């Protein structure tokens, strides 16, 4: 997983339509069509990603038969033939791709060489762990970063802004491992207020499985002490993961709010005698959100890559650790599985960003 994954910036907001008078249809219909178009594009992208991922495995040297069946079974011609047939390896490459695509669609990514389990089983276990951590971190980042960014912009060049400038600079420039060690030492080792790692204490058994998100599962089944413990365990790795994105969102929110504060329509809003709170929250923040959402999407991507490090420091049994181990052992099916998952996550984020654009900006919805 790296931050150079296929997260492309969504199209810039369209300029206002031509001056000719155009009537709005009921917005809902158009929004529906807009969403359908976005979803179709997302699906197409997914197919493209599997193709790239498939072609990469064709290029990487290594025999999938030995890799998947192990030394002993690959000595048995019948087993080899069965395997080659199951994964379509006895057919031409384009057909192989279709078979692969079909398997992926059925959730079959092959066997992991390290865990000797289906990759899909591994993924089902690790994805919720990582998603829980990453979602916690992005929510924390947005809840802290965006309001502070607004504050910094509104109090530009005053002491609030100066302090926040240092905060955001520290957030984006301090190395994650250093923050992690510092936080670990202080909050776990010295003060002992937070658990030092894992999703739960070793003595606790996970909540009844429904979603794989411990907090959600504990909540769903009323396992309150587990909920508390799961939340506590999230805090340390979650905050460490969020330091960078808080700084990033703070900085960016400040910049985009400042840019909009200088526009004519904000002066017009002030000239109407509206309270400053309404001017900032309605007239400034709404348009600023269009770009803030883009950055939040990028931030989520960077969080995902950050999990590789944070998960291993806080022994968080997630996708980051799994990806790291698969890469280290050249576990091709696992690597491909992780790549597809990450790609899908990126696509979903992009889709979400696009949808939110359409919700916020009528110019996109109506064009």
């Amino acid at each position: 997983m790296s931050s150079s994954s296929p997260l492309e910036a969504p199209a810039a907001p369209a300029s206002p339509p031509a001056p000719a008078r155009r009537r709005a249809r009921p917005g809902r219909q158009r929004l529906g069509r807009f969403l359908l178009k976005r979803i179709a594009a997302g699906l197409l992208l997914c197919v493209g990603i599997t193709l790239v991922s498939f072609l990469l495995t064709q290029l990487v040297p290594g025999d999938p038969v030995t890799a998947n069946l192990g030394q002993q079974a690959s000595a048995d011609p019948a087993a080899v033939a069965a395997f080659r047939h199951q994964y379509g390896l006895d057919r031409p490459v384009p057909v192989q791709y279709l078979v692969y695509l079909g398997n992926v669609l059925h959730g079959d990514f092959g066997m992991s060489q390290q865990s000797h389990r289906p990759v899909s089983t591994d993924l089902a276990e690790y994805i919720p762990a990582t998603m829980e951590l990453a979602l916690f971190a992005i929510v924390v980042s947005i809840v802290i970063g965006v309001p502070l960014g607004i504050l910094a912009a509104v109090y530009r060049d005053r002491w609030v802004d100066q302090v926040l400038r240092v905060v955001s600079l520290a957030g984006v420039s301090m190395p994650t491992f250093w923050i992690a060690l510092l936080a670990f030492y202080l909050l776990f080792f010295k003060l002992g207020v937070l658990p030092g790692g894992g999703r739960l204490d070793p003595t606790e058994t996970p909540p009844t499985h429904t979603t794989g998100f411990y907090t959600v599962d504990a909540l769903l089944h009323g396992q309150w002490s587990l909920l508390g413990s799961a939340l506590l365990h999230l805090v340390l790795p979650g905050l460490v993961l969020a330091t960078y994105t808080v700084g990033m969102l703070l900085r960016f929110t400040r910049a985009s709010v400042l840019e909009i504060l200088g526009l004519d329509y904000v002066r017009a809003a002030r000239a109407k005698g509206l309270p400053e709170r309404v001017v900032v929250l309605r007239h400034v923040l709404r348009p600023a959100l269009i770009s803030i959402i883009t950055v939040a999407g990028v931030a989520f991507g960077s969080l995902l890559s950050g999990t590789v490090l944070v998960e291993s420091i806080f022994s968080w049994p997630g996708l980051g650790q799994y990806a790291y181990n698969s890469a280290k052992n050249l576990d091709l099916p696992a690597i491909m599985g992780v790549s597809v998952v990450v790609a899908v996550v990126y696509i979903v984020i992009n889709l979400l960003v696009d949808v939110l654009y359409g919700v916020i900006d009528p110019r996109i919805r109506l064009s």
Partner: protein
Amino acid sequence: MAPLLEVRGLRVALPTRRGPQLAVDDVSFDVDAGEIVGLAGESGSGKTMTAMTLLGLLPPGARTSGSAHFAGTELVGLRRRAFRDVRGRRIAMVSQDPATALHPILTIGTQLTEHMRHHLGLSAAAARARAVELLADVRIPDPEQALRSYPGQFSGGMRQRIAIAVALAAEPQLLLADEPTTALDVTVQAGILRLLDRLRREKELAVVVITHDLGVLSAVASRVHVLYGGRLAESGPAATLLTRPRHPYTRGLLDALPHPEAAAAPLRPIPGAPPSLGAVPPGCPFHPRCAFAQPSCRVDPRPEAVPVDPGHRLACPPDPLRGRPAEPVAAVRTS
């Protein structure tokens, strides 16, 4: 009866890298209820800054002196909180380009009703009903539908009408229209000017039309004040100023306009460019570009606008244009 707005010796100093610089320097004028007054001058002459003073929306760090008495309230030095009750409620603004002054992603309905509700304390339903009336009043077809639309769905002229409706929503007494027609083509301009004139008559609305185009003022303004380099060059009844200008600068502005009867006549722009902030030359600010400049024009003190006829003030001691025959009013735009 005292004028609705009485501006006396207004000065506005804006912060620059070279310290505070006067963007408005000793400007005085009156506006009566139900009157359209023109504020004219080239770019940078201080028109917008004068208007911003009346709204309490000067850039941070700006310093003001003099007085601007508005219906019993002194606006110069008015505290921020008190200004919020004036702004939008008693003095409203329509600015240059409705394409950028209306909020692109808020519905017309929101933009029309939010300050109405804030200032007049109307319920959502009452505000909406009034919004429909306002839109109908500025001749927007199908107002109900328009309330649900966004600015991008209207033409420039329509947007300017909507912006005027927004400005009038909280029933202000004074409307500051900063270049209300600049972004529009000629026929649409005429429509907007007719609209302002009708609102003046029907609602006793006072309007200050800010423009660099004297032709825009000829049809609607009763008095015109010409600014140059932040100072009043000439001010007086529109009919006099536009037919028998006494200041070479006013003359120059008129000569730069196309004449309706002589469409083929070449336009004669004023040579040179207006001074930028803090670079206003000593003496008469206009002297470097003036064909009639004399040595006395080039040295301080700056000429003050003094009465030359009833209601007519001139800041040009040599007065080289006195007694010239009247000329046709340039480019009447509402006919």
